[in-house]
Protein backbone atom coordinates (compact mmCIF):
# COMPACT_ATOMS: atom_id res chain seq x y z
CA UNK A 1 0.00 0.00 0.00
CA UNK A 2 2.82 2.35 0.93
CA UNK A 3 4.51 1.63 -2.40
CA UNK A 4 1.26 2.36 -4.24
CA UNK A 5 0.92 5.71 -2.47
CA UNK A 6 4.54 6.57 -3.30
CA UNK A 7 3.89 5.73 -6.95
CA UNK A 8 0.81 7.97 -6.94
CA UNK A 9 2.81 10.82 -5.39
CA UNK A 10 5.51 10.41 -8.07
CA UNK A 11 2.95 10.47 -10.88
CA UNK A 12 1.37 13.62 -9.40
CA UNK A 13 4.70 15.40 -9.59
CA UNK A 14 4.84 14.51 -13.28
CA UNK A 15 1.32 15.80 -13.96
CA UNK A 16 1.72 19.13 -12.12
CA UNK A 17 3.97 20.85 -14.70
CA UNK A 18 1.60 19.77 -17.49
CA UNK A 19 -1.32 21.35 -15.62
CA UNK A 20 0.74 24.51 -15.11
CA UNK A 21 1.52 24.59 -18.83
CA UNK A 22 -2.16 24.24 -19.71
CA UNK A 23 -2.99 27.10 -17.36
CA UNK A 24 -0.34 29.28 -19.04
CA UNK A 25 -1.94 28.67 -22.45
CA UNK A 26 -5.18 30.27 -21.23
CA UNK A 27 -4.06 33.81 -22.03
CA UNK A 28 -7.29 35.36 -20.79
CA UNK A 29 -7.15 33.80 -17.34
CA UNK A 30 -5.71 37.02 -15.94
CA UNK A 31 -8.77 38.98 -17.04
CA UNK A 32 -11.30 36.34 -16.09
CA UNK A 33 -11.96 35.55 -19.74
CA UNK A 34 -12.36 39.16 -20.88
CA UNK A 35 -10.14 40.76 -23.49
CA UNK A 36 -6.50 41.28 -22.59
CA UNK A 37 -4.01 44.10 -23.05
CA UNK A 38 -2.58 42.12 -25.96
CA UNK A 39 -6.01 42.09 -27.65
CA UNK A 40 -6.32 45.86 -27.23
CA UNK A 41 -2.81 46.49 -28.57
CA UNK A 42 -3.46 44.27 -31.58
CA UNK A 43 -6.68 46.16 -32.29
CA UNK A 44 -4.89 49.50 -32.01
CA UNK A 45 -2.30 48.28 -34.51
CA UNK A 46 -5.10 47.34 -36.87
CA UNK A 47 -4.30 43.60 -36.59
CA UNK A 48 -6.94 40.91 -36.57
CA UNK A 49 -8.15 39.95 -33.09
CA UNK A 50 -9.62 36.54 -32.37
CA UNK A 51 -12.94 37.57 -30.81
CA UNK A 52 -14.43 34.10 -30.57
CA UNK A 53 -14.07 34.25 -26.76
CA UNK A 54 -16.67 37.02 -26.50
CA UNK A 55 -18.70 36.80 -29.70
CA UNK A 56 -21.20 34.48 -28.04
CA UNK A 57 -21.43 36.36 -24.73
CA UNK A 58 -24.62 38.18 -25.60
CA UNK A 59 -26.80 37.40 -22.60
CA UNK A 60 -28.19 34.03 -23.60
CA UNK A 61 -30.49 33.27 -20.63
CA UNK A 62 -29.78 29.54 -20.91
CA UNK A 63 -26.07 30.14 -20.46
CA UNK A 64 -26.43 32.75 -17.72
CA UNK A 65 -25.95 32.09 -14.02
CA UNK A 66 -29.26 31.44 -12.24
CA UNK A 67 -30.77 34.60 -10.81
CA UNK A 68 -30.90 32.97 -7.40
CA UNK A 69 -27.12 32.66 -7.20
CA UNK A 70 -24.39 35.14 -6.54
CA UNK A 71 -23.38 37.08 -9.69
CA UNK A 72 -26.48 35.78 -11.42
CA UNK A 73 -28.18 38.10 -13.88
CA UNK A 74 -31.24 39.99 -12.79
CA UNK A 75 -33.01 38.83 -15.91
CA UNK A 76 -32.41 39.81 -19.51
CA UNK A 77 -28.97 40.81 -20.65
CA UNK A 78 -26.46 43.21 -19.17
CA UNK A 79 -25.38 46.32 -21.05
CA UNK A 80 -22.09 44.75 -22.20
CA UNK A 81 -24.06 41.72 -23.42
CA UNK A 82 -26.34 44.01 -25.43
CA UNK A 83 -23.46 45.98 -26.97
CA UNK A 84 -21.64 42.76 -27.86
CA UNK A 85 -24.80 41.54 -29.61
CA UNK A 86 -24.93 44.79 -31.59
CA UNK A 87 -21.22 44.66 -32.42
CA UNK A 88 -21.40 41.12 -33.74
CA UNK A 89 -24.79 41.63 -35.44
CA UNK A 90 -26.51 38.90 -33.47
CA UNK A 91 -28.91 41.16 -31.58
CA UNK A 92 -32.62 40.97 -32.18
CA UNK A 93 -33.07 44.60 -33.25
CA UNK A 94 -35.83 46.53 -34.94
CA UNK A 95 -35.27 49.89 -36.58
CA UNK A 96 -37.00 52.39 -38.82
CA UNK A 97 -33.75 53.15 -40.56
CA UNK A 98 -33.56 51.57 -43.97
CA UNK A 99 -30.66 51.01 -46.27
CA UNK A 100 -27.56 48.81 -46.25
CA UNK A 101 -25.93 50.58 -43.31
CA UNK A 102 -28.78 49.71 -40.96
CA UNK A 103 -27.37 46.23 -40.50
CA UNK A 104 -24.01 47.46 -39.25
CA UNK A 105 -24.76 49.09 -35.91
CA UNK A 106 -21.19 49.17 -34.64
CA UNK A 107 -18.45 49.52 -37.22
CA UNK A 108 -15.07 48.48 -35.88
CA UNK A 109 -13.34 49.23 -39.16
CA UNK A 110 -14.40 52.89 -39.07
CA UNK A 111 -12.00 53.84 -36.28
CA UNK A 112 -8.98 54.30 -38.59
CA UNK A 113 -11.08 56.60 -40.80
CA UNK A 114 -12.16 58.69 -37.81
CA UNK A 115 -8.58 58.97 -36.57
CA UNK A 116 -7.26 59.85 -40.03
CA UNK A 117 -10.04 62.38 -40.61
CA UNK A 118 -9.41 64.12 -37.30
CA UNK A 119 -5.63 63.94 -37.43
CA UNK A 120 -3.61 63.47 -40.60
CA UNK A 121 -6.26 64.93 -42.92
CA UNK A 122 -6.45 68.19 -40.98
CA UNK A 123 -2.64 68.46 -41.01
CA UNK A 124 -2.65 67.81 -44.76
CA UNK A 125 -5.25 70.57 -45.17
CA UNK A 126 -3.12 73.07 -43.27
CA UNK A 127 0.15 72.13 -44.98
CA UNK A 128 -1.28 72.01 -48.51
CA UNK A 129 -3.36 75.18 -48.46
CA UNK A 130 -1.04 77.12 -46.14
CA UNK A 131 2.03 75.96 -48.06
CA UNK A 132 0.54 77.01 -51.39
CA UNK A 133 -0.38 80.48 -50.11
CA UNK A 134 3.11 80.84 -48.65
CA UNK A 135 4.73 79.75 -51.92
CA UNK A 136 2.62 82.27 -53.87
CA UNK A 137 3.52 85.04 -51.42
CA UNK A 138 7.22 84.19 -51.84
CA UNK A 139 6.83 84.10 -55.62
CA UNK A 140 5.22 87.53 -55.50
CA UNK A 141 8.06 88.88 -53.35
CA UNK A 142 10.74 87.45 -55.66
CA UNK A 143 9.15 87.97 -59.08
CA UNK A 144 6.75 90.80 -58.37
CA UNK A 145 3.81 91.51 -60.62
CA UNK A 146 4.35 90.34 -64.18
CA UNK A 147 4.01 93.56 -66.17
CA UNK A 148 3.24 94.13 -69.83
CA UNK A 149 6.77 94.55 -71.21
CA UNK A 150 6.05 96.48 -74.41
CA UNK A 151 4.23 99.73 -74.92
CA UNK A 152 0.48 99.48 -74.57
CA UNK A 153 -1.40 100.05 -77.82
CA UNK A 154 -4.69 101.25 -76.34
CA UNK A 155 -6.42 98.75 -78.62
CA UNK A 156 -8.15 95.63 -77.31
CA UNK A 157 -9.08 92.30 -78.79
CA UNK A 158 -11.82 89.96 -77.62
CA UNK A 159 -10.39 87.09 -75.65
CA UNK A 160 -13.49 85.41 -74.19
CA UNK A 161 -17.08 85.68 -75.40
CA UNK A 162 -19.94 86.26 -72.96
CA UNK A 163 -20.92 82.58 -72.78
CA UNK A 164 -17.33 81.51 -72.05
CA UNK A 165 -17.13 84.06 -69.23
CA UNK A 166 -20.53 82.95 -67.92
CA UNK A 167 -19.31 79.33 -67.76
CA UNK A 168 -16.07 80.38 -66.07
CA UNK A 169 -17.79 82.52 -63.44
CA UNK A 170 -20.43 79.89 -62.75
CA UNK A 171 -17.64 77.39 -62.15
CA UNK A 172 -15.53 79.84 -60.15
CA UNK A 173 -18.31 81.11 -57.89
CA UNK A 174 -19.69 77.63 -57.21
CA UNK A 175 -16.18 76.31 -56.54
CA UNK A 176 -15.36 79.08 -54.07
CA UNK A 177 -18.60 78.51 -52.14
CA UNK A 178 -18.07 74.74 -52.24
CA UNK A 179 -14.49 75.12 -51.02
CA UNK A 180 -15.49 77.37 -48.12
CA UNK A 181 -18.47 75.25 -47.03
CA UNK A 182 -16.42 72.09 -47.54
CA UNK A 183 -13.69 73.46 -45.28
CA UNK A 184 -16.31 74.32 -42.64
CA UNK A 185 -17.48 70.71 -42.70
CA UNK A 186 -13.93 69.36 -42.70
CA UNK A 187 -12.21 71.46 -40.04
CA UNK A 188 -15.16 73.15 -38.29
CA UNK A 189 -15.23 70.81 -35.32
CA UNK A 190 -11.59 71.43 -34.52
CA UNK A 191 -11.37 75.13 -35.39
CA UNK A 192 -14.81 76.71 -35.12
CA UNK A 193 -16.35 74.95 -32.10
CA UNK A 194 -13.55 76.04 -29.73
CA UNK A 195 -13.95 79.62 -30.98
CA UNK A 196 -17.69 80.06 -31.47
CA UNK A 197 -19.18 77.25 -29.38
CA UNK A 198 -21.38 74.30 -30.27
CA UNK A 199 -24.66 76.15 -30.85
CA UNK A 200 -23.26 78.74 -33.24
CA UNK A 201 -21.31 76.06 -35.10
CA UNK A 202 -24.43 73.90 -35.35
CA UNK A 203 -26.27 76.67 -37.22
CA UNK A 204 -23.29 77.40 -39.45
CA UNK A 205 -22.68 73.70 -40.18
CA UNK A 206 -26.33 73.02 -41.03
CA UNK A 207 -26.50 76.00 -43.40
CA UNK A 208 -23.10 75.12 -44.83
CA UNK A 209 -24.18 71.56 -45.57
CA UNK A 210 -27.38 72.70 -47.31
CA UNK A 211 -25.47 75.19 -49.46
CA UNK A 212 -22.68 72.69 -50.25
CA UNK A 213 -25.11 69.94 -51.30
CA UNK A 214 -27.23 72.15 -53.54
CA UNK A 215 -24.60 74.36 -55.15
CA UNK A 216 -22.80 71.22 -56.24
CA UNK A 217 -25.22 70.94 -59.19
CA UNK A 218 -24.19 74.37 -60.49
CA UNK A 219 -20.55 73.26 -60.30
CA UNK A 220 -21.30 70.14 -62.36
CA UNK A 221 -23.25 72.16 -64.96
CA UNK A 222 -20.41 74.70 -65.22
CA UNK A 223 -17.83 71.91 -65.52
CA UNK A 224 -19.70 70.57 -68.55
CA UNK A 225 -19.96 74.08 -70.08
CA UNK A 226 -16.25 74.86 -69.83
CA UNK A 227 -15.32 71.41 -71.09
CA UNK A 228 -17.49 71.82 -74.18
CA UNK A 229 -16.38 75.37 -75.03
CA UNK A 230 -12.66 74.99 -74.29
CA UNK A 231 -11.62 71.39 -74.86
CA UNK A 232 -10.59 72.05 -78.49
CA UNK A 233 -8.23 74.82 -77.38
CA UNK A 234 -6.70 72.68 -74.65
CA UNK A 235 -5.50 69.71 -76.66
CA UNK A 236 -1.74 69.39 -76.19
CA UNK A 237 0.55 70.26 -79.09
CA UNK A 238 4.23 70.99 -79.86
CA UNK A 239 4.11 74.63 -78.74
CA UNK A 240 3.40 73.37 -75.22
CA UNK A 241 6.76 71.56 -75.03
CA UNK A 242 8.63 74.77 -75.89
CA UNK A 243 6.51 76.74 -73.42
CA UNK A 244 7.17 74.24 -70.65
CA UNK A 245 10.90 74.06 -71.48
CA UNK A 246 11.13 77.81 -70.94
CA UNK A 247 8.98 77.66 -67.81
CA UNK A 248 6.49 79.94 -69.50
CA UNK A 249 8.92 82.80 -68.94
CA UNK A 250 7.63 83.07 -65.39
CA UNK A 251 11.06 83.16 -63.77
CA UNK A 252 13.57 83.79 -66.54
CA UNK A 253 11.51 86.40 -68.34
CA UNK A 254 10.64 86.29 -72.02
CA UNK A 255 7.40 85.14 -73.60
CA UNK A 256 7.38 81.73 -75.27
CA UNK A 257 4.82 81.56 -78.10
CA UNK A 258 1.40 80.24 -77.14
CA UNK A 259 -2.00 79.70 -78.72
CA UNK A 260 -5.29 80.66 -77.03
CA UNK A 261 -4.18 78.73 -73.94
CA UNK A 262 -0.55 78.19 -72.98
CA UNK A 263 0.72 74.91 -71.51
CA UNK A 264 0.25 76.16 -67.94
CA UNK A 265 -3.36 77.04 -68.62
CA UNK A 266 -3.88 73.70 -70.32
CA UNK A 267 -2.56 71.92 -67.25
CA UNK A 268 -5.00 73.88 -65.09
CA UNK A 269 -7.85 73.13 -67.52
CA UNK A 270 -7.23 69.38 -67.39
CA UNK A 271 -6.70 69.47 -63.63
CA UNK A 272 -10.08 71.17 -63.27
CA UNK A 273 -11.79 68.72 -65.62
CA UNK A 274 -10.24 65.53 -64.21
CA UNK A 275 -10.09 66.47 -60.53
CA UNK A 276 -13.40 68.36 -60.74
CA UNK A 277 -15.01 65.35 -62.42
CA UNK A 278 -13.64 63.05 -59.73
CA UNK A 279 -14.84 65.38 -56.99
CA UNK A 280 -18.27 65.46 -58.62
CA UNK A 281 -18.44 61.65 -58.80
CA UNK A 282 -17.40 61.16 -55.17
CA UNK A 283 -19.74 64.02 -54.20
CA UNK A 284 -22.67 62.26 -55.86
CA UNK A 285 -21.73 59.12 -53.97
CA UNK A 286 -21.91 61.11 -50.72
CA UNK A 287 -25.08 62.96 -51.75
CA UNK A 288 -26.93 59.70 -52.38
CA UNK A 289 -25.49 57.49 -49.62
CA UNK A 290 -24.95 53.81 -50.46
CA UNK A 291 -26.35 54.23 -53.99
CA UNK A 292 -23.07 54.60 -55.89
CA UNK A 293 -20.47 52.31 -54.34
CA UNK A 294 -17.29 53.00 -56.26
CA UNK A 295 -14.50 51.95 -53.96
CA UNK A 296 -15.24 48.27 -53.25
CA UNK A 297 -15.41 47.49 -56.95
CA UNK A 298 -12.27 49.55 -57.67
CA UNK A 299 -10.32 47.85 -54.87
CA UNK A 300 -11.41 44.44 -56.10
CA UNK A 301 -10.25 45.26 -59.65
CA UNK A 302 -6.91 46.64 -58.44
CA UNK A 303 -6.39 43.53 -56.30
CA UNK A 304 -7.12 41.29 -59.28
CA UNK A 305 -4.38 43.11 -61.22
CA UNK A 306 -2.04 42.63 -58.25
CA UNK A 307 -1.41 46.38 -58.12
CA UNK A 308 -0.92 46.67 -54.32
CA UNK A 309 1.74 43.94 -54.57
CA UNK A 310 3.82 46.09 -56.97
CA UNK A 311 4.40 48.44 -54.04
CA UNK A 312 4.88 45.65 -51.51
CA UNK A 313 1.50 46.36 -49.94
CA UNK A 314 -1.20 43.92 -48.89
CA UNK A 315 -4.41 43.62 -50.89
CA UNK A 316 -6.86 46.50 -50.52
CA UNK A 317 -9.84 45.71 -48.29
CA UNK A 318 -12.71 43.97 -50.05
CA UNK A 319 -15.65 43.58 -49.65
CA UNK A 320 -16.31 46.89 -47.93
CA UNK A 321 -18.97 47.61 -45.34
CA UNK A 322 -21.58 50.15 -46.52
CA UNK A 323 -20.15 52.79 -44.19
CA UNK A 324 -16.64 52.13 -45.47
CA UNK A 325 -17.75 53.03 -49.00
CA UNK A 326 -18.90 56.40 -47.65
CA UNK A 327 -15.72 56.85 -45.62
CA UNK A 328 -13.46 56.23 -48.61
CA UNK A 329 -15.67 58.55 -50.72
CA UNK A 330 -15.37 61.26 -48.05
CA UNK A 331 -11.58 60.96 -47.90
CA UNK A 332 -11.23 60.93 -51.68
CA UNK A 333 -13.64 63.88 -52.02
CA UNK A 334 -11.71 65.89 -49.41
CA UNK A 335 -8.17 65.13 -50.57
CA UNK A 336 -8.84 65.67 -54.29
CA UNK A 337 -10.73 68.90 -53.44
CA UNK A 338 -7.78 70.13 -51.39
CA UNK A 339 -5.38 69.46 -54.27
CA UNK A 340 -7.67 71.28 -56.70
CA UNK A 341 -8.07 74.18 -54.26
CA UNK A 342 -4.29 74.56 -54.06
CA UNK A 343 -4.09 74.60 -57.88
CA UNK A 344 -6.91 77.16 -58.05
CA UNK A 345 -5.05 79.40 -55.56
CA UNK A 346 -2.25 79.63 -58.13
CA UNK A 347 -4.77 80.22 -60.94
CA UNK A 348 -6.49 83.03 -59.01
CA UNK A 349 -3.12 84.61 -58.20
CA UNK A 350 -1.94 84.65 -61.81
CA UNK A 351 -5.32 85.79 -63.07
CA UNK A 352 -5.47 88.77 -60.72
CA UNK A 353 -2.61 90.41 -58.80
CA UNK A 354 0.09 88.20 -60.29
CA UNK A 355 -0.14 89.46 -63.87
CA UNK A 356 -0.99 92.86 -65.28
CA UNK A 357 -3.85 92.77 -67.76
CA UNK A 358 -4.84 89.14 -67.09
CA UNK A 359 -8.05 89.85 -65.18
CA UNK A 360 -9.50 91.86 -68.09
CA UNK A 361 -9.79 88.62 -70.05
CA UNK A 362 -12.46 87.33 -67.70
CA UNK A 363 -13.60 90.67 -66.29
CA UNK A 364 -14.42 92.47 -69.54
CA UNK A 365 -13.73 89.80 -72.11
CA UNK A 366 -11.29 92.10 -73.98
CA UNK A 367 -7.54 92.30 -73.44
CA UNK A 368 -4.87 94.84 -74.36
CA UNK A 369 -3.41 93.92 -77.74
CA UNK A 370 0.16 94.11 -76.44
CA UNK A 371 -0.71 91.74 -73.57
CA UNK A 372 -2.15 89.28 -76.08
CA UNK A 373 0.99 89.55 -78.30
CA UNK A 374 3.25 88.84 -75.31
CA UNK A 375 1.36 86.01 -73.62
CA UNK A 376 -0.53 84.35 -76.47
CA UNK A 377 1.39 85.43 -79.55
CA UNK A 378 0.16 82.70 -81.94
CA UNK A 379 -3.46 83.25 -80.93
CA UNK A 380 -3.11 87.06 -81.11
CA UNK A 381 -1.63 86.85 -84.64
CA UNK A 382 -4.53 84.66 -85.78
CA UNK A 383 -7.14 86.97 -84.26
CA UNK A 384 -5.54 90.11 -85.68
CA UNK A 385 -5.17 88.56 -89.15
CA UNK A 386 -8.84 87.55 -89.13
CA UNK A 387 -9.77 91.03 -87.92
CA UNK A 388 -7.72 92.61 -90.70
CA UNK A 389 -9.12 90.38 -93.45
CA UNK A 390 -12.65 91.05 -92.18
CA UNK A 391 -11.95 94.80 -92.30
CA UNK A 392 -10.55 94.52 -95.83
CA UNK A 393 -13.59 92.55 -97.00
CA UNK A 394 -16.00 95.17 -95.68
Amino acid at each position, binding site marked *: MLRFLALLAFMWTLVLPVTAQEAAVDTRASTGGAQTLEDILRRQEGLKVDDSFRRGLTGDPDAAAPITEQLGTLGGASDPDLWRALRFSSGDVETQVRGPAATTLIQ*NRGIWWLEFREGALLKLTAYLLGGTLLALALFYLIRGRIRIDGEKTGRTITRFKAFERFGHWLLASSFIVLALTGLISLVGRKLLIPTFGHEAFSTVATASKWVHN*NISWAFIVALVIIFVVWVVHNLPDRTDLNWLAKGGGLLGGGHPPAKKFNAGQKLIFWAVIILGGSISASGLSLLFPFEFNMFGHTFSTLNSWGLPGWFGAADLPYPLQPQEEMQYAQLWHSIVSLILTAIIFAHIYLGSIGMEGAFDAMGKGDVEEQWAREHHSIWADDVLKTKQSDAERT
Partner: protein
Amino acid sequence: MKSFLLALVALVVISLGANQMLLRSGFSSADAGTSEGNVRIGSQDQ
Protein backbone atom coordinates in the same frame (compact mmCIF):
# COMPACT_ATOMS: atom_id res chain seq x y z
CA MET B 1 -19.26 92.00 -65.30
CA LYS B 2 -22.67 91.13 -66.78
CA SER B 3 -21.54 87.53 -67.28
CA PHE B 4 -20.41 87.35 -63.68
CA LEU B 5 -23.73 88.63 -62.34
CA LEU B 6 -25.64 86.31 -64.65
CA ALA B 7 -23.53 83.40 -63.36
CA LEU B 8 -24.46 84.31 -59.76
CA VAL B 9 -28.15 84.35 -60.69
CA ALA B 10 -27.77 80.99 -62.44
CA LEU B 11 -25.98 79.66 -59.36
CA VAL B 12 -28.94 80.50 -57.14
CA VAL B 13 -31.54 79.27 -59.64
CA ILE B 14 -29.77 75.94 -60.26
CA SER B 15 -29.22 75.36 -56.54
CA LEU B 16 -32.81 76.08 -55.52
CA GLY B 17 -34.20 74.25 -58.54
CA ALA B 18 -32.13 71.13 -57.92
CA ASN B 19 -33.11 71.15 -54.26
CA GLN B 20 -36.82 71.36 -55.04
CA MET B 21 -36.60 68.72 -57.76
CA LEU B 22 -34.86 66.27 -55.45
CA LEU B 23 -37.26 66.91 -52.59
CA ARG B 24 -40.32 66.41 -54.81
CA SER B 25 -38.85 63.27 -56.35
CA GLY B 26 -38.59 61.58 -52.96
CA PHE B 27 -34.85 61.99 -52.55
CA SER B 28 -34.94 63.69 -49.15
CA SER B 29 -32.88 62.01 -46.44
CA ALA B 30 -36.06 61.09 -44.58
CA ASP B 31 -37.64 59.51 -47.64
CA ALA B 32 -34.51 57.69 -48.71
CA GLY B 33 -33.34 56.46 -45.33
CA THR B 34 -36.37 55.60 -43.24
CA SER B 35 -39.53 53.54 -43.36
CA GLU B 36 -42.83 54.13 -41.58
CA GLY B 37 -42.85 50.75 -39.90
CA ASN B 38 -40.19 49.02 -37.88
CA VAL B 39 -38.08 46.58 -39.81
CA ARG B 40 -36.09 43.77 -38.29
CA ILE B 41 -32.53 43.97 -39.40
CA GLY B 42 -30.84 40.82 -40.59
CA SER B 43 -27.52 39.61 -39.34
CA GLN B 44 -24.52 40.70 -41.32
CA ASP B 45 -21.03 39.70 -40.42
CA GLN B 46 -18.69 42.54 -39.58
